[in-house]
């Protein structure tokens, strides 16, 4: 295979394989899983290869679908910004697939497995496609592919999941339609759908009301898909009730891909000065995000279910990313892009732990987690790594993206947002230390039963290899991303930030 075609292959391979998996599943269910692993492994290879090529070339790879020249044909573009996000998506999908092997059987009936894997691959197709495409309408189609698979996957979950999926669907359709309308408005005045072409045509029209309406619709559509604060209401229910492996796939990826699309629309399709100076878009987004961070933090404190608490943490994290965009300077945007990548790994780490705890103890309640460090020491260690990263403790990656976000706030002199970031870190600390306290320091209940054995009896996790490896891997990635964050910024992210900053 020619490396030239990797941009197309990374989307087409999981798309075609999803149907093949379904067909194989009709005959023998056992072969579904290996096929999925091979497909996603190929995606990881394509993404890694493209990232390397972008880094050595120093500029973007443009791929023309069917050799049609850009303004007419669909163009796939890989640059520094989406190459690293593509790789993160592929890696997370790959390891969540491994994780799902042992985990998903406990939550959905055996005969639904082919359907599950079909949707899993379609979901990955959609997410990779949203990230790689350079065409505004193509983005809509792929957004819908990802959303459909998400609705169906969520509906496989616990009691009430199908109702949550329906509500998500109502919201998601409004979001997608708003995006579609926005594209329609832009098409009406420019006659183009290609993002790079739009970027050239639009600056002359910045005073047009049609353009402003279109821009507003695009932002609203993406905001709903990425669960920005006032329109996040679909997220907690649907991600809580979905099967563990599904929420481990969706929760870290979907919202972050939405955040990526927001950066694309605001800074690639439109010039950064449009949303900073011409209209106070970044300022408005900043206030919305700040309100969302505080609101989601308080709601997270009120939850006793671990997955639901993590859902509100996601809403807050999305707020961080938007806050970085709102600061509209180099530091803030570096922080945002770094946080997209870091947050993907932090959330997948925490959601896999939540899924494991749920499948082992049969409960997602924080109060039921007492003394778990004795029965599942590895799982809880992974949880500690992920949690400390969300709080922002230095060796973990969460600290570094927060550091850049704070630098961005200081440089933009946005003191209110700075205070919001710091308060939110404190709220996160309370959130997770509350759980640590429950897990580690609740000695009273257990000690009475263990006569004379020093009160400590540690057993290893009763987990299969397939569940442990992904969790430990995610924890390692969190630490490595933190240790090498300087290198990542120097070699990738500094080129990903729009040149104007």
């Amino acid at each position, binding site marked *: 295979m020619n490396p030239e075609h990797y941009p197309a292959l990374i989307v087409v391979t999981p798309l075609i394989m999803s149907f093949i998996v379904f067909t194989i599943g009709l005959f023998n269910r056992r072969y579904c899983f290996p096929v999925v692993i091979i497909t996603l492994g190929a995606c990881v290879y394509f993404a890694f290869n493209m990232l390397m090529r972008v880094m050595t070339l120093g500029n973007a790879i443009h791929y023309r679908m069917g050799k049609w020249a850009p303004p007419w044909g669909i163009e796939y573009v890989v640059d520094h910004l989406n190459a690293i996000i593509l790789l993160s998506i592929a890696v997370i999908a790959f390891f969540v697939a491994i994780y799902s092997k042992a985990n998903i059987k406990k939550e959905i009936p055996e005969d639904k497995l082919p359907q599950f894997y079909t949707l899993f691959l379609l979901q990955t197709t959609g997410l990779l496609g949203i990230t790689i495409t350079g065409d505004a309408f193509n983005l809509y189609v792929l957004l*819908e592919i990802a959303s459909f698979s998400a609705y169906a996957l969520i509906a496989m979950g616990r009691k009430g999941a199908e109702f949550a999926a329906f509500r998500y669907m109502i919201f998601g359709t409004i979001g997608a339609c708003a995006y579609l309308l926005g594209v329609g408005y832009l098409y009406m005045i420019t006659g183009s759908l290609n993002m790079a072409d739009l970027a050239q045509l639009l600056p002359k029209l910045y005073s047009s009301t049609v353009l402003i309406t279109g821009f507003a619709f695009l932002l609203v559509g993406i905001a709903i898909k990425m669960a920005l604060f006032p329109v996040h209401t679909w997220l907690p229910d649907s991600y809580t009730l979905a099967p563990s492996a599904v929420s481990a796939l969706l929760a870290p990826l979907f919202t972050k891909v939405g955040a990526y699309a927001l950066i694309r629309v605001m800074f690639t399709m439109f010039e950064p000065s449009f949303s900073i100076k011409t209209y106070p878009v970044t300022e408005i987004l900043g206030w919305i995000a700040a309100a969302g961070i505080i609101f989601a933090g308080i709601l997270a404190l009120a939850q006793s279910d671990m997955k639901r608490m993590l859902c509100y943490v996601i809403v807050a994290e999305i707020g961080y990313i938007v806050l970085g965009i709102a600061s509209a300077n180099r530091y803030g945007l570096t922080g945002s892009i770094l946080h997209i990548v870091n947050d993907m790994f932090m959330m997948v780490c925490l959601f896999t732990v939540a899924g494991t705890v749920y499948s082992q103890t049969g409960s997602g309640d924080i109060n039921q987690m007492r003394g778990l460090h004795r029965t599942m020491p590895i799982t809880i260690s992974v949880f500690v790594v992920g949690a400390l990263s969300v709080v922002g403790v230095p060796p973990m990656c969460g600290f570094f993206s927060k550091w850049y976000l704070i630098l961005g706030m200081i440089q933009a002199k946005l003191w209110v947002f700075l205070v919001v970031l710091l308060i939110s870190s404190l709220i996160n600390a309370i959130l997770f230390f509350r759980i640590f306290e429950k897990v580690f320091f609740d000695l009273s209940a257990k000690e009475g039963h263990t006569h004379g054995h020093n009160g400590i009896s540690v057993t290893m996790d009763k987990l299969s290899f397939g569940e442990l490896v992904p969790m430990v891997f995610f924890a390692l990635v969190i630490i490595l991303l933190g240790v090498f964050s300087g290198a990542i910024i120097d070699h990738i992210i500094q080129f990903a930030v729009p040149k104007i900053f």
Partner: protein
Amino acid sequence: MELILSKFNYWIYVVLIMVGFYGMMAKNNLMKKLIGMNIFQWSIILYYVSIGCKKGGTVPVIIGGHGAEGQIVRAIEYINPLPHVLMLTAIVVGVATTGIALTLLIIIYRKYGTLEENEVIEALKK
């Protein structure tokens, strides 16, 4: 009045989208929500189709074709087919949405015996 008449296609789509939005947000019955969602989607399709339309326009092909006498239609005279083609995709997306939504509604009805939103929420609380 002239503002309405001269741009009546946009007004129709605005009215339809509001009807759909109202259905989605205010109705208690999940099936009615779904119908509202469909109206919402189709109104956007109508909007796209209408922006590609032109009075007295013709098809964007070379008249006479193949031969040397082929005469190219000027851009101002033909109808842009692209919005219509885009809507083929959007229609497929709409059909898929409706399909998934109906499936979900069937599951909800089998499990809870009702499609009224408040009754489903009541049943879930138990």
